[in-house]
């Protein structure tokens, strides 16, 4: 073999900048919006549709809208949205018929809740263990006393007066907090080796998942009193809460079960071989992995539950949507339903979007450094 035919590169080729058409704004536009004739046409069509929809929407919601004034006469000169309706009714949308001089109790409860939840959810704030302890044991008692009253000189506020966004939050937070542990227990029960436990879990889950939430709530408010002995009467809100919690627990159980099935058998075996008991295996090895896998499903259930709380209106509890709906039927504000529902929709969206973003952050955080083989 002669050296004359072999070519050997002796110096390293320098790195060159990528061509201008693949990076920067131009590159982005090219690859994402105008990569082919079809995509170019679709991009232009999309822009046209936006031009059709957005300006009138902005005009209605912002430019021609009314925000000053105290009643509907203020809105009459303007063709746009009458946000005065929302402004006037705002506190009722938040607190329902909770006595206005007592609403500080709702606010305080909410602040105490945020104070407990922030350390649990946000990594930078220390004291997670204490916060969790406080949330699980101290806060429920404090919240109950503050909301219901009747002790320590706080006037009693009947649950029939509760309403608006505060009621939505009470129902959904209690539903969420109760459904996760219950759902986990049901999921474990369904995968248990004990036949009776397994059968009970299956029956529970299938029975609750098989009926609409509306009928659960309806049964809770109308049918249940028929079966109870004379004089025994549960609070209507309490009945709805139990219904919502058990209903979402059944859904949660199936979500968690999906996660449990995704944990490889080897993990159970390794834990068993080390002598870990059933509960330690579940608590330390299996559930942390299973729950991480199903975070999207869990948050999905939470979001569904949050929005399903609007159904309590069917049994005469007025959550945010119920209050808005009632307000639109008020003779003084007839014809304001668009503003009302847009407002209610926006509030629900903010909460649900917040949950969704948090779940994405949580997934990223837990996924860091744990590449799966």
């Amino acid at each position: 073999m002669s050296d004359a035919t072999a070519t050997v590169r002796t110096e390293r080729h320098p790195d060159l900048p990528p061509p201008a058409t693949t990076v920067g704004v131009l590159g982005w536009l090219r690859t994402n919006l105008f990569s082919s004739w079809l995509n170019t046409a679709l991009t232009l069509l999309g822009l046209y549709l936006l031009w059709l929809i957005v300006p009138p929407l902005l005009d209605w919601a912002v430019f021609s809208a009314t925000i000053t004034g105290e009643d509907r006469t203020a809105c009459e000169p303007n063709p746009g949205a009458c946000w005065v309706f929302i402004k006037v009714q705002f506190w009722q949308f938040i607190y329902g018929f909770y006595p206005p001089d007592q609403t500080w109790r709702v606010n305080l409860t909410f602040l105490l809740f945020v104070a407990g939840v922030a350390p649990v959810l946000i990594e930078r704030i220390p004291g997670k263990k204490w916060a969790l302890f406080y949330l699980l044991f101290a806060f429920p008692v404090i919240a109950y006393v503050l909301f219901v009253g009747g002790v320590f000189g706080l006037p009693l506020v009947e649950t029939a007066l509760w309403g608006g966004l505060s009621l939505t939050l009470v129902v959904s937070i209690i539903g969420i907090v109760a459904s996760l542990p219950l759902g986990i227990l049901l999921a474990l029960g369904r995968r248990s080796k004990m036949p009776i436990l397994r059968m009970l879990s299956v029956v529970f889950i299938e029975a609750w998942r098989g009926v609409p939430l509306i009928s659960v709530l309806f049964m809770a408010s109308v049918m249940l009193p028929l079966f109870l002995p004379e004089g025994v009467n549960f609070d209507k809100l309490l009945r709805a809460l139990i219904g919502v919690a058990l209903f979402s627990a059944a859904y949660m159980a199936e979500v968690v079960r999906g996660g449990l099935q995704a944990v490889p058998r080897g993990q159970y075996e390794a834990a068993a071989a080390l002598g870990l008991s059933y509960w330690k295996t579940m608590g330390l090895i299996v559930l942390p992995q299973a729950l991480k896998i199903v975070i999207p499903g869990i948050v999905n259930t939470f979001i569904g539950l949050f929005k399903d709380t609007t159904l309590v209106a069917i049994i005469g509890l007025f959550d945010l949507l119920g209050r808005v709906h009632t307000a639109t039927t008020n003779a003084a504000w007839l014809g304001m339903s668009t503003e009302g529902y847009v407002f209610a929709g926006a509030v629900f969206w903010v909460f649900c979007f917040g949950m969704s973003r948090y779940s994405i952050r949580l997934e990223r955080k837990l996924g860091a450094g744990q590449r799966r083989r």
Partner: protein
Amino acid sequence: MAQAQVVKAPSDDVVIQIVGMHKWYGQFHVLKDINLSVYRGERIVVCGPSGSGKSTMIRCVNRLEEHQRGQIIVEGTELTGDVRQIDAIRREVGMVFQQFNLFPHLTVMQNLTLAPMWVRKMPRAEAEATAMRYLERVRIPEQAHKFPGQLSGGQQQRVAIARSLCMNPKIMLFDEPTSALDPEMIKEVLDVMVELAESGMTMICVTHEMAFARRVAHRVIFMDGGEIIEQNDPENFFTHPKSDRTKLFLSQILGH
């Protein structure tokens, strides 16, 4: 060859006694009349074609599989349905799996300290010191704070061995520990196992690494069709196999 000539068990102290053990998967008779005594400090290599029941047999020793007939006595305790007895035996019997089975959500250090802290109730500082000692022994102390997914297969298997050792077991079971590894990583795991063997640990090892068997085993067991066909010291096992099935297996595994 010097090690291969060890014929007698290193002690008379029986740590595992399997008597007339049978196991079925549904209708399928997986293990047939297994009789085996393992002495303290003895190193046994179990080999045989796939599906011969060798993994199932050692998995019965720490009750990852349940046997339906016969007796298994480990350290004087018989394996029955009693959960407390099962847990007591599992504390004394370490196991290393083909697929490593490290806990992916925990760091290497947490993998090693979890069982000592939660099962043996060892204080954290002591558990971490023990873990570090075993990580040094398997030669990867610098990986302590990584997650298993960041390690190579060979490193993961060495962590798995260290994890078992942290429980200070009296017996170690190895279920094809090198079968899932790339060839260049097999040696680093076998080196650790040889070193462990030299420390006098009682070991039962299901493996196809015949060089390893020759070097460290006191006894080689050949299984086929759910039965123990033949057992002998490595020297005689490899040079004078008695049954035809053993001869066939050896010619297949050593032939290429």
